[in-house]
């Protein structure tokens, strides 16, 4: 592994909470590693597990699925589905042998810019320690 290797994180962010929280991190000028790229979705409940699998297949080293705190969903119940669904997806990925740190499911509200930055820092640290995702990556 070369010393300047940086992990790549694909993040799915619900537009009402986490995407706005990431914007707040920007307006507050909170610095965090340039490892994350967000996909804006209407609700974390829109995130099909196949999106996450595809990201890992295409070489993402980590995936973040993030939405409103349970109980605060803009659509009432979307993030409750996310919570249930991804507790299974996580177990499935661990069963496949993927390190659990590679998939994070987080509740980050529009007011939690600090927390968004913190999560990205933590994930980046974890992934730097783990190194590239070789397990699920499909070699071109």
């Amino acid at each position, binding site marked *: 592994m070369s010393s300047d290797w*940086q992990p*790549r994180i*694909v993040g799915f962010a619900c537009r009402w909470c986490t995407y*706005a929280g*990431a*914007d707040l*991190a*920007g*307006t507050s*000028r*909170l*610095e*965090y*590693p*340039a490892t994350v*790229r*967000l*996909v*804006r*979705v*209407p*609700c974390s*409940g*829109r*995130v*099909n597990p*196949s*999106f996450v699998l*595809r*990201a890992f297949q*295409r*070489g*993402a080293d980590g995936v973040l699925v993030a939405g409103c705190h349970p109980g605060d969903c*803009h*659509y*009432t*119940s*979307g993030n409750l*589905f996310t919570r249930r*669904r991804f507790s299974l997806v996580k177990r499935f990925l661990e069963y496949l042998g993927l390190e659990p740190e590679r998939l994070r499911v987080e509740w980050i509200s529009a007011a939690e810019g600090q927390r968004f*930055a913190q999560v990205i820092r933590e994930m980046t640290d974890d992934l730097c320690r783990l190194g590239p995702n070789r397990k699920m990556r499909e070699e071109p």
Partner: protein
Amino acid sequence: MPRIGVVVCWCGHNIAGTVDVTQVTAAAAAMPGVVYAEDYKYVCSEPGQDLIRRAIADKRLDAVVVAACSPSMHEATFRQAAAAAGLNPYRVEIANVREQCSWVHRDREEATVKAVALVQAMVAKARREEPLEALRLPVTRRALVIGGGIAGMQAAMDIADAGYQVLLVEREPNLGGRMAQLSETFPTLDCASCILTPRTAEVARHPRIELLTYSEVREVAGYVGDFRVRIARKPAYVDWDRCIGCMLCQEKCPRKVPSPFERDMGFKKAIGVNFPQAVPNRPVIDREHCTYFEKGKCQVCVRVCPVEAVDFEQRETVREEAVGAIVVATGFDVLAPAEFGEYGYGRYPDVIDSLAFERLNSSSGPTGGVIRRPSDGRVPREVVFIQCVGSRDPDRGRGYCSKICCMYTAKHAMLYRHKVPDGQAYVFYMDVRAGGKGYEEFVQRTVEQAGALYLRGRVARVYPEGDRMLVRGVDTLSGQTVEVAADLVVLATAAVPRGDARELAQLLKVGTDAHGFYNEAHPKLRPVETMTRGIFLAGAVQAPRDISETVAQASGAASKVLALFSQEELVADPLVAVVDETRCAGCFLCRPVCPYQAISTRVAGNREVATVNPGLCQGCGACAVACRSGAMALKGFTDEQILAEVEALCLRTGSPG
């Protein structure tokens, strides 16, 4: 392949200071499908927007990607600019290279690489985009208000005063709701009917309010701006158009039955009105207790009626109405205290609930406003009030605070003292919650001036001893068990949803909480709206609340209706779910996950498929994930588009996919 244009904004130094915009522009130009790439200092400025408009025209662009600030800032700006140049506004995508890139990263090279990736993702998404048309819904400028209590009347008045037609549906024969049963109101001790009666009269004669009392909503179809509602008018067995309200029939009717309005402490006739000031002042025959309906003879009312208005053949009639918005103000019920055997309600006549105590206080009540206990009509010398009967009691299924009981119990203790100066009131309480203007002061007056004895603790048992009731409880402040011999025991029973609240909620497609109270769209920011657009809440249907709050909320709901009616037509985001019927297997796994009940069944050929009502759908996408066959797509966020973004974001080097 669609022709895509990319415009990269410098945002002065904000983006260009960290991201090498020229490099991003150059990289964008090389992306497949991109026929135009340019950068500009401030794209949101008028010349910047002009740049977009000209590019659309000159380069015949099918889609535009703007790399700039967050879409929450200028997505609408750029969509309008595109629309002005003839491009479908939903073919504009924003790559967020400011809030989520230049402002949070320091390393120029890393930030530039990331910015390229973000642009690439949006180009990939834009390539897979369809033009979408904003949904335009007509507005029927006429509101339905369900419930003719203080909440419904307030909402109806506000809407009608602003110039729109209102249909006010009330289940009872008369207006007034719960408030009509109250004696005085806290914290001012206004007499309830003194403030209510003028209001009911105003509502009844308002030229733009159509009153449908003794009626119920049976069916609700359609969506915001265009609801179709079926309303059933129950048979009163009196032709109200002929009736002149002389009430001779009530006077002469030989049949007396306990009156639910008086909490069974007083009597009503089998024909008549609930209370003398009822509006409309028209009688109804109580079919279950009418001698004619039971035995086929009597007809005293027919004989005494001067205008031949009694009509035993009357049937239920159903009408269909079109309305643009609905205000639900169906109020609350009080818990039947029979659940609480330890207090002996139902077994001992001198254990009553608070609503019954209101009737005892009311000058139009069964005792003419003199507080007499039901068993022997004696004026009670000692009264025990027990608070939180059913409220704040998770063991019996209701963990919530009913909110109004602390205040009305203080009011009762005070009114009792006013009427029985040598009487003693005891109040067993858990906490006294008196948040509200003038509320705490009122409770203090009850304690200090009316001399009510507040005992902090629960009551374990109420049982008769001699002709009094022994109340055994605990005073947790002194740690002693206490026994009070009382002449009357009043239970402050929990406010609960109406018995059929859930059925109505289903008709309206409005969510309820665990208890059956209706859910607001957002507990803080959208407290009078429901998750179904065009349906609003007022009063205790949502949660227990007092009169002043109810009225404020009703006016809030009315203002939401007015905002809706002020629009020429309703524009809805076209980012809704749509079913590919050829792929839909008809499993309907999508239906339970939809928070808006927007999905219904449709017969396509010889099978059933799902279909989405775009007026109800809010575009959350839960159904698209639940769908096993990939038939459900969320416009603007299709699987294909999101996967294309994912692939673009994962690319390390090389050409974009």
